[in-house]
Structures are given as C-alpha cells and as structure tokens.
C-alpha cells in the first residue's frame, strides 16, 4: 500500500502556499536566468571555438614600419609559416565621432562572417562590424562618410579576429562605440592611397603549437627572426591578442561566476527549507511521536518531510531550464551580442548547464535537508510525544539584567530563541548586499574612474611620433616614450608606458632627483608597489631587462606608467641627449603630417574602458540590482514569517492579556527590525571588502587598472533599498500579527 502520508503533500502546499510560491518563483527565475546564460555562453563558446577553424583565424599578427621585403618572406617560407598581408587603414568617420579600421576583404585568413546583408562587391561599398553598427545606429543601406568617400553599407559582419573590438592590444578595454572594423573591395581599398596604411601581417603555422606555452616559445623565436629583417611596431601572437582571446575567456568566466552564485543561493534556500521544516516538525511533534509509536519508521517520516523541498526544487529547476532555453537564453545572448562581435551561433543542448542548474541544486537541497532533518528526527517517539525536542536544552534560561525593561528583554529573548533564523537572515542580507553593492557601486566606480582620468590627464593632446619632428604649436612640450613589459610568470605581460619628462615640465608635476623614477598610482596599486621597491621590466621585442627603484608614486589613473627625467630616459634607452618622440600639448598639433604620428591620445582614448564597460554591463547591473533586492526581500520575508508562525500561540496569548497589536509588533517585528538594521550595519562594510576583492579579481584580467571605489551614495542607496524593502516586509508581518486570532491560544495546547 502506498504511504498514506503522501496525501498530506497537496494540503501542505495549499496550507503554506505563500512560502512555496515565493521559493518556487525565485528558484525558477534564478535557474532560468543562469541556465539561459550558461546555454547562451555554451552555444556561443562552441561557435567561438569553432570559428578558429571555420574562419581560419590567424596564429598571430605583426605590424611593420615599412612593407615586408623578400628577405622576410623567405624567413617565413623557411620556417614553414604562412604569411598573409592584412593591411588596414584607421579612418575617422565624418557623421559621428569614431575610428573605423578598414581591411580589404579577406579570402585566406581571418574570414568574415556575414550576419546581415552581403559582402561589398563594388568600389563604393562597405561591410561593417555588426556591434559597431548597432552602437552607432547604422543599418544595411546606410551611407558612411569616411574621409572624402561615401560608402554604402552592404552588410553587417563579424570579423573573426575582432570578436572583441580592441583598437590596440595594449588597451585596457575595447570600445565598440568609437571603434569598429570593416571590409571593402580591393578596388575601394586601393583608392585610400599610401598615407596611413598600416603594414599588418598575419601568420599561420603549418604545424600548429599544441598549447599556449609552445605557442609562446614559437612566437618568441619568430619575433627574433622578424626583428633581424624588419622594423617591427607591433607583435601580437594569437594567445596574447585580446581582440581574439578576450571573448573566449570572458564567456568561460561568466559561466563560473553564475554557477557559483546559483549554488550560494541554493544553499541559503536549502537552509530556509530546513528551518521551516523543523518548525513544522516542532508543531507536529505529538503526531510524529504517535506515528513513530504506531510503527512508522524514521526513514518514512524523513522521506515525507524531504518531499516538499525536493519536489519544489526539481519542478522549479526543470521549469527554469525550459525558460532558460527559451526566454532567458535570448536575453543572455543579447547581452553577449551587446559586448562582443560574435559570429552567428546555434543553440546547443548543454549537459553541463543542466548538471549545474538542476542536478547540483537538487543534490545540495537534498544533502542539506537530509542532514538537518535526519538529525532532528532521530529522537525517540516518547520525546516527540512529550515535545521534548531539544536534547541540549539548558536547565535555566540564561540571565538577562533585570534592570533592562521587560519589553527589551522580551525582544532579546525572541532574538535568542530564533537565532538560526536570524543567522540565515544575516547571511542572506550579506549576500544580497554584495549583489546590491555590485549593482550600485560598479556604475559609480566607472563614473569616478572616467572623471578621475579626465581631470588627471597629462595633457589635452598627447602625441607619439614615428620620428622626432618639430612643431610650431604654442606650449607643446617634448617628451620621450617607450613601452616595456612587466616580467612575471603570466602568459600575457602587462605593458608599461615609460615616459621621459622635460625638466620643469608644464604637464607632469614631479620634481625628479637624479636618476629617480616615479610610477603611476595605477601601477603601484595593481602590482602592490611603493617607494623603495624595485621595478623589473623588459623590452617588448628584444631580450633586454631594465631595473629601477621607485622614488615615488604620481597620481595618474589612466594607465600603468613610469616617469623619469628625459635626460635619464635617453641615457637608459641609449638615445642621444636631445632625443624625443612625442609632444604634450594643450591644443591639437596641426603642423605634423598624419603619417608621422604613431598615436594621438585624447580624453576619448583614455576613457574608452569606462565607456565600454558601462555600455556592455549597464543592463546587467540593473538586473543584478533587481536580483539583490528580490533576494533580500525573499529571505527576510520567509524567515520572519517563520518567526511569527512559530510564536503564533504566544502572540495570541499576549493579545488575550491585553497587549495591543502595536505592542506585539513592537516585540516580534521590532526584534527582526533590530537584527535587520544590525545586519545592514555589519554586512555593508563586509560586503564592501568582498566587493573590493571581487573587483580586483574581475579587473585584474584587464590591462591597466581601475581602482575599487564605492561612493558614500552607494552605501546610502543600499541602506535605503534595504530599509524600504524591509519596511514592506515589516508591514506584511504586522498584518500577519494582527490576523493571529486570540482563540489560537485556547485551541492549541502544548
């Protein structure tokens, strides 16, 4: 015969519908959201991984000052490495402010995926990157004004070597608003002329390296060979090319973070289930005792009490998965498409996502509830009948100072009585605060970073020249600049801008002592360096190491930089005493030809990171904020509901004694209010520390450095959100207290 206790399940569901619907909805939405992300990122990762073969993505690229000669081509032939021309122009668009990198349509390497429309076939046609087009409101058929040309957009495309639109590999972040890529026909490409042509080459090994370490060794050998034959200005092996690698790394990392978030939430929900079930067991102790005395086994009762949490988890996880594959997958895909220029993808069944979003949560729920409930149910039938459920019960209640008023002592007793609930509330508030802080502080962090950069730029215009040319620009100041790399075990070194500053500089306010070196605060913070520490760096394309001792830290948030006197710079890098290769200027320099300018750095260039992060993470942060608030409200609602229900008989009795609803709420709801306020005060600083580590971890993968910052307004916003959310819960609990009937004390006997 089937266990008749099963008939209680629908009644239990009906009896506590509010609790179950809240938990069911929350798990469903969480699983749906995360499953959607995992499915989208899994499908996109597959499309991304396949794109290496499908679109013949290069093993690396390099750029030369002049076109490669036969000697260099011979080197590649001897080394059995295929070399491809991948020349490009960087052009400014006329109708809106942006740079577009124009390539000739590719046929052998780094092939193009057409997302909409078609590739250009005529001289006045162009196909542009889909994301850049969306960000700038461009559609197929639109005419793009570039220099003196008007080009009609024939297609929206994804260039396989630009899944992340990094203009330069040393950029901290790509900027898909102000930088895009495009392809044109050979005829069109040739009409741009020689000015501004970048001699970029891609290579592919005949025999591909087995892993990144081997790729690094091969790339280093290749670099030595190229340096011998040509003047190299840029060298990006595939493993270190952010435009290719960043997307793949980010897709993987997102999945990891999402799954970890789900597990934490499931563990909290499992404890909430366990606490509510223990509450039910306490209420039903006499029935349990009687059933046990009648012959029901502990296992049968354990299965009975485990059924609801497991059933709710399984059903909500399955529904969540269905929503994940349908609704949420598209939302997640949209978020990825807002960030990356990915090729088209096909949704694939993701067993890993199913395990992460269904199997593991169900096992976590089962494991936690099994351990807690089995422990509770191991008492003898007699103890259940006598309602003697706490084997560790103390002989006396611990004493509270009687000079404290009875109402305060009453509240303290409620807090101590419900400590497991309150601990869960504190843990839940802490977690919700971490999520809320991410939602409120991250946009502020980016804003502050952007403002800080803008107000601490070295100059309005900063130029790096290909040759030391003079200018008539008033106030322009010469300086020297080169790029070194940090030396550590990482696959990708960090680039360090080393600047030689003129004496009495108008742009850099440092009083250098003899042979003294200062570092930017970004450098100092990212690498935990300070005055007296030794910097070890190496030249980018040669085997030469440099060591300096830090004399001080200079406030320059825009990058990882080293400052020294121009004279010392020229001495260290073996230039002539008068050498310079750049200008700081307050106005644009117009008397140096574009072809002699390697880089022009303005505020736009320095703030691209914050712009792109705001653009790609903006909508995500809003969702995170909502998630934090919902989680906060759900945890507090469920746990305070339990506290009120658990004390319903005492509440009923205090009503009979003559306590008003306000006074009773002052006891039971206020006790929770005190814990919530205490938890907010306690967990906000803790959440702040956690967020600092999370931000450092998240941002450490980027070149450069964004310091952690959470403004006081972020905390105020969090407190406000916390208080307002709690006020809603407190109001519902007040109504619950009000609705407890007085005859409950008469009906239920202990």
């Amino acid at each position, binding site marked *: 015969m089937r266990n008749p206790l099963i008939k209680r399940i629908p009644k239990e569901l009906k009896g506590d519908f509010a609790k179950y619907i809240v938990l069911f909805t929350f798990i469903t939405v969480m699983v749906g959201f995360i499953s959607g992300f995992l499915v989208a990122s899994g499908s996109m990762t597959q499309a991304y991984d396949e794109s290496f073969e499908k679109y013949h993505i290069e093993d690396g690229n390099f750029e030369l000052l002049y076109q490669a000669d036969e000697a260099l081509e011979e080197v590649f032939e001897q080394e059995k490495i295929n070399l491809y021309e991948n020349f490009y122009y960087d052009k400014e668009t006329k109708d809106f402010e942006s740079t577009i990198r124009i390539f000739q349509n590719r046929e052998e390497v780094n092939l193009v995926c057409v997302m909409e429309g078609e590739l250009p076939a005529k001289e006045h046609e162009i196909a542009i990157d889909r994301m850049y087009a969306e960000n700038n409101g461009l559609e197929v058929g639109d005419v793009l004004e570039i220099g003196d040309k008007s080009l009609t957009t024939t297609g929206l495309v994804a260039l396989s070597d630009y899944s992340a639109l990094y203009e330069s590999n040393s950029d901290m972040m790509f900027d898909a608003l102000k930088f895009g890529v495009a392809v044109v026909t050979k005829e069109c490409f040739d009409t741009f002329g020689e000015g501004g042509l970048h001699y970029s080459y891609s290579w592919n090994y005949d025999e591909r390296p087995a892993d990144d370490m081997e790729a690094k060794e091969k790339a280093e050998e290749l670099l030595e060979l190229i340096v011998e034959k040509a003047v190299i200005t840029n060298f990006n092996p595939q493993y270190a090319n952010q435009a290719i690698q960043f997307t793949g790394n980010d897709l993987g990392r997102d999945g990891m973070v999402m799954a970890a978030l789900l597990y934490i939430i499931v563990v909290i929900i499992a404890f909430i289930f366990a606490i509510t079930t223990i509450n039910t067991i306490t209420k039903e102790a006499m029935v349990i005792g009687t059933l046990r005395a009648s012959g029901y086994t502990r296992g049968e009762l354990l299965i009975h009490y485990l059924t609801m949490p497991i059933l709710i988890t399984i059903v909500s996880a399955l529904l969540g998965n269905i929503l994940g594959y349908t609704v949420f997958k598209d939302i997640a895909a949209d978020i990825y498409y807002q960030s990356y220029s990915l090729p088209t993808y096909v949704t694939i069944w993701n067993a890993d996502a199913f395990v992460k979003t269904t199997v593991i949560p169900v096992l976590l729920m089962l494991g936690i509830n099994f351990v807690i409930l089995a422990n509770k149910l191991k008492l003898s039938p007699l103890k259940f009948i006598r309602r003697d459920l706490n084997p560790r019960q103390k002989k006396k209640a611990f004493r509270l100072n009687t000079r404290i008023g009875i109402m305060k002592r009453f509240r303290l007793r409620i807090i101590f009585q419900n400590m497991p609930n309150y601990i869960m509330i504190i843990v839940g508030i802490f977690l919700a605060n971490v999520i809320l802080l991410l939602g409120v502080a991250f946009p502020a962090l980016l804003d502050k970073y952007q403002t800080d950069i803008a107000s601490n730029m070295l100059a309005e215009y900063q130029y790096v020249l290909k040759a030391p040319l003079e200018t008539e620009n008033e106030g322009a100041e010469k300086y020297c600049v080169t790029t070194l790399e940090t030396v550590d075990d990482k696959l990708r070194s960090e680039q360090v801008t080393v600047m030689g500053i003129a004496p009495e500089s108008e742009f850099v306010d440092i009083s250098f002592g003899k042979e003294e070196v200062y570092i930017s605060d970004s450098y100092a913070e990212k690498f935990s360096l300070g005055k007296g520490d030794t910097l070890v760096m190496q030249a980018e394309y040669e085997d030469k190491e440099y060591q300096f001792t830090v004399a001080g830290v200079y406030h320059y948030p825009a990058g990882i930089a080293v400052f020294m006197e121009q004279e010392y710079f020229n001495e260290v890098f073996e230039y002539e005493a008068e050498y310079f290769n750049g200008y700081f200027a307050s106005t644009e320099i117009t008397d140096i030809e574009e072809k002699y300018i390697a880089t022009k750095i303005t505020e736009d260039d320095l703030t691209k990171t914050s712009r792109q992060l705001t653009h790609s993470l903006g909508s995500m942060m809003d969702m995170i904020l909502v998630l934090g608030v919902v989680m906060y409200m759900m945890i507090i609602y469920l746990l305070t509901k339990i506290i009120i229900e658990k004390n319903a008989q005492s509440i009923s009795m*205090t009503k*009979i004694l003559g306590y008003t609803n306000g006074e009773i709420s002052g006891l039971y709801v206020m006790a929770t209010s005190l814990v919530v306020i205490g938890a907010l005060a306690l967990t906000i600083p803790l959440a702040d520390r956690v967020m600092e580590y999370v931000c450092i971890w998240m941002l450490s993968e980027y070149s450069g450095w964004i310091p952690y910052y959470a403004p006081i307004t972020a905390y105020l916003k969090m407190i406000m959100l916390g208080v307002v959310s709690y006020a809603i819960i407190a109001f519902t609990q007040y109504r619950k207290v009000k609705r407890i009937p007085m005859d409950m004390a008469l009906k239920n006997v202990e």
Partner: protein
Amino acid sequence: MFLEINQIKKHFGEGDSRVEVLKGIDVEIEKGEICVLLGPSGSGKSTLLNIIGGIDSADSGYIAINGEKTADMNEKKLTQYRRKHLGYIFQMYNLIPNLNIKENIEVGAYLSDNPLDVDEILHTLGLYEHRHKLPNQLSGGQQQRTAIGRAIVKNPDILLCDEPTGALDYNTSKEILKLIEDINKKYGNTVVMVTHNDAIKNMADRVIKLRDGVIRKNYLNENKISAAELDW
C-alpha cells in the same frame, strides 16, 4: 451590579451544522464573588467565559462591567478592557516558552499602571527559587502558579479561570484552588471559574450550572467551604 451578563446568545456553524451554544444567558455577579460555572462538555461554559473575556463575541446580548458594555467596544477598546479589568488563567497555562518564570509574570505587570510587586508574588506562589527557569523546566502545578502570577500581578478586577486544574493531579489542583481563594481574599478580585469538577462548586460564592446553552441553576452557595477542605 459589578458584572452583568444579559441575554447572551451565541451559535457556531451554519445550516445543518449550526449549533446554538448559548441560548440567552442572564447572570449578575457581585464584586469580589467567586463564581463557579459548572457544566458538561459542550454546555457552553468556556464560550461564555471567552465572551466575558472579550476574546469572543456574542450574537446578541451584552456583557457590562460597572455599566461599561463590551458589545459597544471596538477592537482597541476591547484590548484596553482586557488590559484594565481582566486576568486570564487557562487549563494549559499558555506561558511564553522563551521567557523565564519571572519574565512571564513581568509580561503581565507591564500592562498595569500599578502592578503588584513581582518578587513578592514569586514568593507568595513559591516560585522565587525557580524564577530564572524556563516554563518547560517546571512541573504542571508550578507552571499554573506562574500563569496565576501573570494574571494577578496587574491586580485585575476579574480573574477568569478556564479549567485551571484540568491538567493537574489532585493535590496540586487543591493547592491551585487554595491559591485562587487566597488571592480573592487578599485582593478582592471577582473570580469566574469554569470547571466540570462538581466538587469545586463548594468553594464558590455563586454557582451557575449550564447545560445545552441554558442556565439550569444559578444560586448563592450558603455552605461555602475553604478550598483546602475540598475533596473529590
């Protein structure tokens, strides 16, 4: 008249399951009286007590204490009525489990502007040495004494007792009844006690017998004896 019960009617359920629990009860009780409500299960005695206590409402009729009618009171006023005039003692004590003995009594004291001394009551009830214990660490009799302490600490005009000895053994029951009697003597509260134990009527000033929602007998007990002399 101190406590006036006038034409109280009450029913539960509807249709076929409608039961008339009280069918027009009229009683007058003087201040300081011990009134025992006797009757078998289902006679309506606890319902009447709950209506007097303002925790249940009558279909018609009214309760008046010193001329103040409970039927005219809204929820707020009823709360104040209970707070000002009533002390309640139940069969199953209904102590607050997470408060110790002293705190349970203090919960009652908080409601009064002029409460009795809590420590004195603890001594009177023989609970002083147990004052730091939790209710579930005491015997049934000790818990009931705590409930009495909580009820009397605010020195209420009326002490409503619903089967106060129903869960206790013979000796403890007599102890508790003696305590109620002593309190009545000492503080002059009116006591309305519901019981199905016929012997208890002997300690009452007034005896009211209920059956099927109507008063069968209502008389002053001229042969009243002390609770200590009760036997059953």
